């Protein structure tokens, strides 16, 4: 089981309670689709993803970004059992959505960059380490049920 210090818990809690999901969610997914264009393969039903401009203004992308970011709330509320918390979502991503789990890391890297951009120097190395640890645990849990 993953161990979290009191300091780490409070860092994670602070980041998320000050996050504007409606801003950061879309930004993270948009960035992922632009920086790692092969990730667009999962969103053929989203319409126009032909260029960066189209992706940045696509309402379906924005909505999905918000949804995905809220998906992290589950981990927030269950820090001591993230693996079990995401079991169902892991099955979904594997059996229904057929998402290559490597993509979870790509999105998580983009989310880190977007949060870093938002917080600036307040995103200290220590905070970065804790945030990345949190995302790594979620990413691992999401990949757990693949077979």
């Amino acid at each position, binding site marked *: 089981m993953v161990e979290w210090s009191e300091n780490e818990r409070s860092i994670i809690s602070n980041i998320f309670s000050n996050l504007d999901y409606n801003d950061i969610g879309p930004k993270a997914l*948009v*960035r992922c689709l*632009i*920086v790692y264009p092969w990730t667009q393969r999962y969103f053929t039903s989203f319409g126009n993803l032909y260029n*960066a401009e189209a992706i*940045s203004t696509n309402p379906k992308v924005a909505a999905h970004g918000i949804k995905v970011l809220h998906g992290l709330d589950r981990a927030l509320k269950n820090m001591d059992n993230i693996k079990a918390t995401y079991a169902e979502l892991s099955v979904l991503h594997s059996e229904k959505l057929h998402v290559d789990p490597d993509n979870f890391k790509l999105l998580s*890297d983009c989310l*880190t*960059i*977007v949060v*870093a*951009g*938002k*917080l*600036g*120097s307040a*995103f200290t*190395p*220590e905070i*970065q*380490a804790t945030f*990345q640890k949190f995302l790594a645990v979620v990413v691992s849990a999401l990949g757990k049920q693949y077979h």
Partner: protein
Amino acid sequence: MSLSAKDKEIVKAFWAKVSGRADNIGGDAVARMLTVYPQTKTYFSHWKDLSPSSAPVRKHGGMVAATITDAVNKIDDLAGSLLTLSELHAFTLRVDPANFKILAQNILVVLATMFPVDFTSEVHMALDKFLAALARALSVKYR
């Protein structure tokens, strides 16, 4: 995934804008790498102080930044311009090349914190590709 003419243009333009702070960028990136990926500290056991603001960390960051600036100027021949450094990393330092990716990620995070407006998705992608190309050039002499 090779660097297109457009990628090179974007990298040169962005680096020109930020190179005034190159030393800080390098130092901050190395500091983050050591904090966020503690396994990287194993390569620096000869430093007395591995804290973010320590002299060896800042100095090393400066070296990394200077290399990047040089590489940007020689972007059409990365393998050639990094040959000596590749030999150094391969035969003397023997740094596992997986770590180049780690340092690259931290460089990108630093750029995001320092230049949130200029570090757009397009710039992010071009730089990600450039740093990957740098890493490949650094790995050339490994085996």
